[in-house]
């Protein structure tokens, strides 16, 4: 039995062979059994025979979110629906939801992937883990639940809501692992203190597994300080299986990817071309184990990179970096890809300005973005009576942006509170003529 996590220490040559074989099988399987993929391959004049080795994957068409929406509900299925034993769906904020169906084998594979993710983060069979993700159509709750059971940890399937009860059970059960979104973990620490409890002293928590939403480094440190635990993040999405795609080990230097089960590609989101190793771009994933609803070259929309080199922990799988943005937010300025998150990161390094910013796009007659203005609020610390100092600040910000994204936008200092407080991207990016 207990050799299910050997894949994280596998010999890389052996792994490459395994990946290739599993990819070829997946491509054949999808073509022969999924009406959606047969049609898609035919429309792109490509047959499975053209994929002879791993690198031929680029001959296959991408699958996008809208493809998956159009295949609603079961067009993706590669097995008769009677062999599907569970259905999950992502909550589409617009349009139809994306449906994922799992065969019995798929569920076993998925549980194993999640179990490996948890084991990498340091969970063992001696742990008691509370799952505070919602149980339902969302993959988070069930995904972590069965993975932790596979690992033989003691699982408390609390689901979401009822914070006070969560906190009292966590205390009484001497729960050691918390599985939730990072923001919920912070909220719970706050709630515990309001109940007169000390998150550090009154609980046995030692480890947190966080996912379901982006977790900044600051947020992670905050959670660690509040609870006195090690906080790890993991990554996954319903479209390719759910949680269990990748996750951090205790080194916290990127997320180990389960390479034996997913083929990862990093592409330039504008051209679709593969990027050299180590460069940042859109993550494309092909799960190579799924029977029920196969997915080939899914464009995740998440911006990340593959971290070159090996992890200190000794596991041999490659790591993906934390998600730094979404392609939906990408702006192409004079041929350069610009992500608002990159600007945000640069601005966070200046104490003279606040994190509130706005990108104003100026377009040419043909509609291309020819210029971007970064509007940013000055903080009291940044304000000085010296005109030169303020101009120098604008210049420094501009230079720092130029050195990270090879683009020199205009930088405009704004009065405090003059920009709308919002985290949504819609208000952060405005068209020049709208002002």
């Amino acid at each position, binding site marked *: 039995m207990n050799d299910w996590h050997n894949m994280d220490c596998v010999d890389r040559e052996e792994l490459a062979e395994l990946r290739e074989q599993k990819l070829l099988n997946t491509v054949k399987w999808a073509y022969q059994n999924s009406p959606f993929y047969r049609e898609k391959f035919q429309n792109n004049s490509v047959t499975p025979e053209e994929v002879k080795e791993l690198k031929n994957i680029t001959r296959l068409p991408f699958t996008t979110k809208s493809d998956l929406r159009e295949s609603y509900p079961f067009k993706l299925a590669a097995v008769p629906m009677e062999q599907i034993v569970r259905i999950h769906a992502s909550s589409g904020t617009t349009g139809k939801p994306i449906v994922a169906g799992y065969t019995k084998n798929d569920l076993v594979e998925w549980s194993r992937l999640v179990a490996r993710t948890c084991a990498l983060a340091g969970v063992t069979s001696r742990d008691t883990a509370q799952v505070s993700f919602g149980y339902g159509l969302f993959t988070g709750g069930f995904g972590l639940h069965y993975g932790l059971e596979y690992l033989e940890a003691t699982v408390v399937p609390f689901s979401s809501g009822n914070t006070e009860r969560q906190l009292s059970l966590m205390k009484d059960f001497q729960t050691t692992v918390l599985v939730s979104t990072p923001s919920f973990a912070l909220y719970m620490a706050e709630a515990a203190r309001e109940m007169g409890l000390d998150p550090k002293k009154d609980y046995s928590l030692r480890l947190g597994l966080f996912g379901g939403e982006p977790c900044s480094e600051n947020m992670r440190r905050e959670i660690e300080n509040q609870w006195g635990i090690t906080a790890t993040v993991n990554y996954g999405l319903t479209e390719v299986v759910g949680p269990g795609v990748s996750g951090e080990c205790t080194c916290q230097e990127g997320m180990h990817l389960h390479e034996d089960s997913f083929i990862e590609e990093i592409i330039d989101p504008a051209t679709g071309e593969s990027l050299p190793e180590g460069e940042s771009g859109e993550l494309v994933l092909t799960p190579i184990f799924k029977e029920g609803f196969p997915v080939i070259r899914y464009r995740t929309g998440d911006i990340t990179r593959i971290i070159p080199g090996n992890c200190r922990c000794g596991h041999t799988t490659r790591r993906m970096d934390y998600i730094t943005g979404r392609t939906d937010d990408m702006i192409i300025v004079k041929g350069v890809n610009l992500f608002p998150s990159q600007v945000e990161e640069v601005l966070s390094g200046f104490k003279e300005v606040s994190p509130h910013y706005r990108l104003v796009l100026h377009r040419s007659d043909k509609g291309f973005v020819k210029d971007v203005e970064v509007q940013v609020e*000055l903080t*009291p610390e940044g*304000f*000085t*009576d*010296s*005109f030169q100092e*303020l*101009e120098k600040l*604008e210049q420094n910000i501009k230079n720092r942006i130029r050195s990270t994204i090879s683009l020199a936008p205009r930088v*405009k*200092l*704004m*009065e*405090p*509170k*003059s920009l709308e407080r919002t985290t949504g991207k819609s208000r952060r990016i405005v068209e020049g003529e709208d002002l």
Partner: protein
Amino acid sequence: MVNQISVFLENKCGRLVNVCQTLGRENINIRALSIADTSDFGILRLIVDQPERALSVLKEEGFMAMETEVIAVEIPDSPGGLADVLHYLEEAEINIEYLYSFVEKPAKDALILMRLDDIEKAKKVMEEKGIPLIGGERIYSL
């Protein structure tokens, strides 16, 4: 020494008006002002009769405001008066960041406000040369 109020202004029409309205409503009188601006932003510099109150009401109104020290120099009302003063400062290697004058001429002689990189040294130089400096209390109540 004179306390000046500096206010950061986005180049938005109406912000200057807002500052003046806010002070007017609070019965704070503006004695002198200057605006330095580029196409991006501006710094409004004010001498008022009640600097501390002005600072707090402006901050309450959401303005980015701060206090800075400037000196007020009485320049003999004769040709070359200002030139002499500037020459003395140059000789002593004191840099002038900016200077401006009063809205209305409050006395026989011209009054100039200057922001310098070394105020203490400038005070000595002016004393040696017999150029009178005007203290805050007198300026505010002019």
